[in-house]
């Protein structure tokens, strides 16, 4: 299999899905399923005219903040848990308890606590992305080859320096897998929080058009959101592969609960 063909496959998959959609729409002739071509034109129009841009930016802004906090909190916590059983005994049961909670469902409660601004939604995103970040960082730090640490210690490397020089780089492939999962989950948290408390953002826009019965636009925004999810994952994959080209390739899990 050539590299080019491999790269084109997802594109072929997209075209295949769109063709299916088009066929179904032509067959049904229903307002509820506008043809893919019309929806794509609409999506292009929404982006070109700038009508959707403010909402895309407010969504992405919250995602970026939530993600930044999630990384700063989650990765160190996971790495430390991976190296200390005592800390892990404290952290792991809390994560296990928190794992099945639908985080975005806390929106109405956070609205009472933090008010109607961006903070509630950002907190939801932080909580959602933190779980995979902590978990994968933990796995990475836990499986660092002990011989590396022994050699470093024997040469007089301090604990903090060991962390930077050995544990972090050695765990990086696993940490970045967690980051990939976190991006996918972050987008889910972003959209669902906006759908539950409808103020602005792409999730709001989707339901706004649905309520106004502009079904073709509803589909167009859904296409844009789906493309955002795919594009963010694709972009991060470039970064991840570049940063960990030296590590044996692992299949990313990609799907974990948000």
């Amino acid at each position, binding site marked *: 299999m050539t590299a080019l063909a491999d790269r084109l496959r997802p594109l072929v998959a997209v075209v295949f899905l769109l063709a299916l959609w088009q066929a179904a729409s032509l067959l049904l002739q229903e307002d509820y399923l506008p043809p893919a071509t019309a929806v794509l034109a609409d999506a292009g129009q929404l982006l070109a005219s700038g009508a959707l841009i403010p909402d895309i930016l407010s969504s992405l802004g919250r995602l970026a903040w939530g993600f930044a906090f999630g990384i700063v909190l989650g990765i160190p916590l996971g790495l430390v848990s991976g190296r200390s059983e005592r800390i892990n005994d404290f952290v792991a049961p809390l994560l296990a308890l928190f794992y099945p909670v639908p985080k975005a469902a806390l929106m109405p409660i956070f609205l009472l606590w933090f008010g109607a601004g961006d903070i509630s939604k950002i907190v939801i995103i932080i909580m959602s992305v933190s779980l995979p970040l902590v978990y994968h960082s933990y796995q990475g730090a836990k499986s660092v080859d002990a011989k590396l640490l022994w050699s470093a210690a024997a040469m007089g490397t301090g604990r903090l320096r060991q962390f930077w020089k050995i544990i972090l780089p050695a765990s990086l492939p696993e940490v970045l897998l967690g980051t990939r999962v976190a991006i996918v989950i972050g987008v889910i948290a972003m*959209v669902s929080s906006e759908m539950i408390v409808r103020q602005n953002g792409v999730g709001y826009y989707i339901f706004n058009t649905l309520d106004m019965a502009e079904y073709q636009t509803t589909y167009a925004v859904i296409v844009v959101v789906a493309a955002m999810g795919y594009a963010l994952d694709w972009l991060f994959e470039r970064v991840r592969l570049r940063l960990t080209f030296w590590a044996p390739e692992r299949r990313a899990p990609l*799907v974990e609960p948000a």
Partner: protein
Amino acid sequence: MSLSRLLARSYSPILLLLGWEVLVRSGAMPSVLVPAPSNVILRLVQSFGDPVFLFDLQQTLFRLFSGLALAIVLGTAIGVASAQGGIGEQILEPLMRVLAPIPKIALFPALLLLFGFDHLSRIILVLIDAIIPVLLAAYYGARAVDERLLWSARSAGTSPAGCIWRVVLPAALPGILTGVRIAIVIACIVVFLSEMVQPGDGLGDLVIRAARAFRTIDMFVPIVTISILGFLMDHALALIRRRVLVWMPES
């Protein structure tokens, strides 16, 4: 697991809940905004005598289990089938590369338009969200089957279809069960969110109704219910996995 080990592994949630309780009881946190955990648990227990709660619970469970069952059956079937021959690499893998990172909840408005505002749209949302981990697990599990097992089975006279039942499926089972565990939690979360996003009935809608009436304890009860449900189902499956797969080393 010894008792001291069990305690070491569970003291932090207990500490968290106790601290929360103390903060609310002492008045440091206003109980109007943050109910005490004991009050939430009490209300949860009482809710099981409340016909309204039971009806919403039943609506949610119906959607959850229908979607989940479809996801498990279809995911396993499609995954195992695609692992035979070249369709997996040619079609399934690129499709999954595109579909997996898409936030499925964003498709929900389209599902509402296509399948109506009642059960079906929510069941299908659960299906498309929960099928992916099962399908991927079944596909990669079935592909990883040791070929020598298949050769032996074939030479011993097992038919190709029999091979799938007797060799491929059991060999892929550990992976599939792990996929199902992920699917369970995804399904619990997404069915709940679908009921919050487009209210009608169900546990998610119960949160919205409580929020409109500003009843904070009642906002927590459905969230705690679905979380406990996800937690129990996840752990039940882990237990089943260990039982069924005694011959298999833990991964």
